[in-house]
């Protein structure tokens, strides 16, 4: 039951990396989760799929540069300290 904070950090870094790799044009558009594919009306509140699509797009936009730094630091630390 060793679910530590460090494993939570590791898992979150891997998940954010996975979300950042989902390419808009090459992949999401074919599945139907592209950012410009039928979000719906303007007055209605968005459904879950629209919220998820927005979330993926915003994570990719925001975390693109910080992920470079985080990944580099993690790689160096794991190489040094195992």
């Amino acid at each position: 039951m060793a679910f530590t904070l460090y494993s939570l950090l590791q898992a979150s870094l891997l998940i954010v990396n996975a979300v950042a790799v989902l390419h808009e044009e090459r992949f999401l558009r074919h599945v139907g989760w592209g950012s410009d594919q039928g979000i719906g009306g303007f007055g209605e509140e968005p459904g879950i799929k629209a919220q998820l699509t927005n979330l993926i797009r915003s994570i990719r936009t925001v975390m693109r540069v910080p992920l470079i730094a985080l990944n580099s630091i993690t790689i160096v630390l794991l190489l040094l300290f195992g």
Partner: protein
Amino acid sequence: MDPAAPPPKRRGPARLADPRPLFEDTSATGASPGRGFGAPPPPPSASAAASSSSAAFGAPAAFLSEPVSSLAAAYGSSLASHVEGNDWQVRYQQDTPVAPRFDVNAPDLYIPAMAFLTYILLAGLALGTQNRFSPDSLGLVASSALAWLLLEVLSVLLSLYLVTVSTDLTPIDLLAFAGYKYVGMIVGLLAGLLLGRAGYYAALSWCCLSSFIFTIRTLRLKLLSEAAAEGVPVRGARNQLRLYLTTAIGAAQPLLMYWLTFHLLR
């Protein structure tokens, strides 16, 4: 005596009994750091409840005399002081968050923080009675419980975002609500240590049930729409989704309570 034995549980809360700058002081006497909120002055009934809570702080035996207030005592002394009727829902539903001084049932971080630390000390005690204690196991239990707490708060935030619920629940409120289950876990652990597995299962199932009901009744005011919160069944996919979300958050409490304690009483 074993030098590596954990300190007894009684010393833990007393040592940490004065986190004054960090947490809201729920007693009505003394200086008023909460007046700066600009909240309206409390009505006479709230001030009577608050003053009785300050009296009850000095007389803990008053909690256990009445069974209803002893039920509420599981959820904090601030709730137990409210002895008039069974009214233990959040009273004010305003835009600005209200300090626990004015609304006796507003979420505060004192109970969860105390319960969390007591849980860690009790876990060390339980491990020690089974000869499974080592100095780093205490840190492991603490880190694990903190990680589960963080994971729960983050998943609730994520699901609130996905369902587009416009609510005034801050992450700190969610942290407070998630921390209330540690009180039930402490009761279950104590029963397991004193009375064996049967006592553990009995106490834990009762605490799980009450935690489930408490979470649903507290969250439905904040998550569901106005009509649905009154009890009138409202049709519509969105209200159904909100109901499922509230039920799921409530059901996660007993699951986590069991998951975090059963391995301590093997």
